[in-house]
């Protein structure tokens, strides 16, 4: 799965540690999600969506669908 978390985080000018603080997870978890190594659970994905005020499907994409969504 791909995601636009790092872009949304950059828009807010937050560091990974700050985003982790908002989500109640460790900085390693935020990094693992951003790099696509770890797919978050549904509760955490929903929390991310609420934090950035976006639906989950606008943040997380199936492989290959992120570029199509950007266009």
């Amino acid at each position, binding site marked *: 799965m791909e995601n636009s978390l790092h872009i949304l985080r950059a828009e807010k*000018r*937050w*560091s990974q*540690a*700050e985003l*982790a*603080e*908002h989500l*109640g*997870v*460790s*900085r*390693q*978890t935020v*990094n*693992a999600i951003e790099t696509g*190594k*770890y797919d*978050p*659970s549904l509760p*955490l994905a929903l929390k991310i969506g609420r934090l950035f005020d976006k639906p989950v499907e606008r943040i997380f994409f199936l492989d290959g669908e992120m570029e199509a969504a950007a266009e």
Partner: protein
Amino acid sequence: MTASKKGNLSVSTSQHDADVPRDGRAELSFWGLWFRWSSLGPRDKADLIGMLVFAFAGGLVQGLTQADGVGWYRLIAPGMIILSLLLLFRFCRRQDELFQEIILHGAAGVGYGALAAVFSLQFFDHVTGSKSVDAALPVILSGMLIGSVIGTVRAYRKLI
């Protein structure tokens, strides 16, 4: 401009908050075999120190009482080990989902390691025709340890 200043102030405050170690935000280090101490909150540190103290004391008592006969004090060492494991369990339950997933892989490794050790012992007994009952516990414990390390390191390298 004001909004920008407000934004910066907000981020600055948040940065300060993010720098304060909190319970349940433990980060792994050394390929997942230890924890980044600076990321641990007060309760996390207390649980880990308690776990280490009980594990060390349990091992020490077990070693000192091993030569003695049967007695009530033989229960002290297993009791301390159980307390140590309970503290580790409480520590892990407090952590976030990625941490728990890596620990889960380590726990699965413990099971695989124990199974591999039992099968190895059975195979050894079958081939040599001997009974390796005396060596069973150390071999199984070693298998569990090796399995745990392999499971944890593999998960760490995959996920972090």
